[in-house]
């Protein structure tokens, strides 16, 4: 049955995710929500990111979760998810982000969504948009959906399907437009590798034409992703330049560079990207990730074994947060532990070494960030001038 022509997104108002960051005289950072003045800490993180399944109809070559269309054992049940949401709500958390795998592949996706709403969460989710059935579409139209973020790796079917598999492009693009047409807040996210870096301008034009906010990040070598397709530092610099050229402009859409692109540069407009860095890794503070098997890490970008701070089947979320386990887990990110160029960097106090996802997945030694504009500029200048 086709959705009725009147199937439209509910008209809702949501608080912006914007945060004001302030640094005390002792260097301690405080994060306050711009529109409500509510502040966040490791004992009350901003957003609960919940991987409701690892199962996915696609088998993307860069998937951190190594998802595929198979039944994974030991995934959280609806009851377990409800208990988790109870705990998160009691800590004061009010933002829920559902992710996968592919979220629509779970038969009880809408029930999970409702469980979040019933506990006072604003709910958003990430999808590959290929499984948007009429039932799901109707269900979404009946609920307040804060944001739908959809992965799009290229406007070109060839490039997109090289990454996400045959038959993945047409339904994704059709459903992206369908959701937008229905009035949902839709943003696109692209992870750049050597397979789609050349498609940057085309994806931007697509976003601009249709009014999609665009999140930009770099594919990193973890999960199923091989280092054969990840960017070199020079290609990373190119991605940064392209992103910064857009970010620095006043555009009708938001360009949202992820933390991996927020390193420091001496030169405009690339130096604008460092203003998107929150002063330190905010994993565990502005977001907390619960995997489909109950493991907890500070961020979905930090789905590494060494970043697991507990499992909600054995530990209470309350304990994990109140004991500030994420803060302790990431304590190796302090300035004093940096090495090489990072240790001598004039931006070290503000940067602290950059995004730990990149340090752990793309750098030989996590104490030294190879994916850093300052470092690349320094190498180029010295090579060229000395």
């Amino acid at each position, binding site marked *: 049955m086709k959705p009725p022509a009147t199937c439209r997104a509910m008209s809702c108002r949501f608080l912006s995710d914007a*945060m004001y960051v302030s640094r005390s005289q002792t260097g301690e950072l405080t994060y306050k929500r711009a529109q409500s003045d509510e502040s966040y800490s490791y004992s009350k993180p901003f957003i609960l990111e919940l991987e409701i399944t690892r199962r996915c109809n696609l088998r993307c070559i860069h998937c951190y979760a190594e998802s595929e269309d198979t039944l994974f054992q030991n995934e959280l049940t609806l009851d377990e998810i409800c208990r988790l949401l109870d705990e998160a709500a009691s800590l004061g958390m009010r933002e829920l*982000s559902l992710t996968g795998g592919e979220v629509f592949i779970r038969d009880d996706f809408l029930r999970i969504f409702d469980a979040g709403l019933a506990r006072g969460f604003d709910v958003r989710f990430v999808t590959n948009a290929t499984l948007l059935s009429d039932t799901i579409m109707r269900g979404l139209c009946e609920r307040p959906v804060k944001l739908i973020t959809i992965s799009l790796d290229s406007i070109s079917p060839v490039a997109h399907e090289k990454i996400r598999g045959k038959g993945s492009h047409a339904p994704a693009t059709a459903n992206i437009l369908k959701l937008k047409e229905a009035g949902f807040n839709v943003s696109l*996210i692209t992870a750049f590798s050597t397979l789609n870096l050349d498609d940057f301008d085309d994806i931007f034009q697509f976003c601009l034409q249709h009014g999609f906010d665009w*999140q930009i990040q770099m594919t990193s070598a973890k999960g199923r992703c091989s280092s054969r397709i990840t960017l070199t530092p020079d290609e990373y610099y190119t991605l940064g330049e392209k992103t910064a050229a857009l970010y620095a402009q006043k555009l009708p859409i938001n360009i949202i560079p992820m933390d991996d692109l927020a390193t420091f540069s*001496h030169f405009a407009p690339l130096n604008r990207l460092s203003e998107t860095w929150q002063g330190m890794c*905010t994993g565990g503070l502005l977001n907390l990730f619960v995997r489909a098997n109950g493991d907890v890490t500070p961020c979905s970008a930090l789905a590494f074994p060494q970043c697991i701070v507990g499992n909600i089947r054995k530990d209470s979320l309350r304990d994990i947060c109140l004991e500030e386990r994420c803060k302790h887990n990431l304590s190796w990110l302090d300035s004093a532990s940096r090495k090489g160029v990072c240790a001598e960097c004039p931006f070290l106090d503000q940067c602290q070494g950059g995004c730990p996802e990149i340090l752990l997945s793309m750098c030989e030694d996590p104490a030294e960030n190879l994916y850093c504009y300052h470092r690349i500029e320094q190498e180029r200048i010295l090579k060229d001038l000395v």
Partner: protein
Amino acid sequence: MENNILHDAESAMKARDFKQAIALFEAHLSNHPDDIKPMLQLGICHLLTNSTGAFTAIYSRVAALFLDLGQIPSELKELWGKYGALAKKAGATALIAGTVMSSAATSGCGKPHSAHKYSAGVYKEPKPMTVDKMNTEQTTPGEPKEPQDSMAQPEKPPMKYSLHRYSGGAYIDRNKE
């Protein structure tokens, strides 16, 4: 002795020991205040330690020296061009644009131009070229490409807020932020 200081300064610079390199270049320049090559090298050390003010000051100082000389010594043209390209990228030339004539910079004129030639009114031909223009064609690796005209938009002011940045999507109210 002097050569040793310069050699050591360059070695320190290559080894990325910029503090040491700056100290050695400054020691040399205290005895040879008009020695332009080490002055430019010192400026680059300042840039790489994020002392943009010192980097810019050296740019101005060298530009003034070239005006006094009336030409750029041939052995320094390439280095000066690259330095200028870095200054442009770093935004430093916005502070000092217009201080050097292209003819002085590129062709080695016999005598310095007087200052009034750079101002509007008296001399309209030849059109003066600013430092910005002088360095347009001189690029260094890593220089960002200018945005294409079709995509050029007014520059956005610095962001007053931050966001959580993870793969789950960030919601920004376009009307308020």
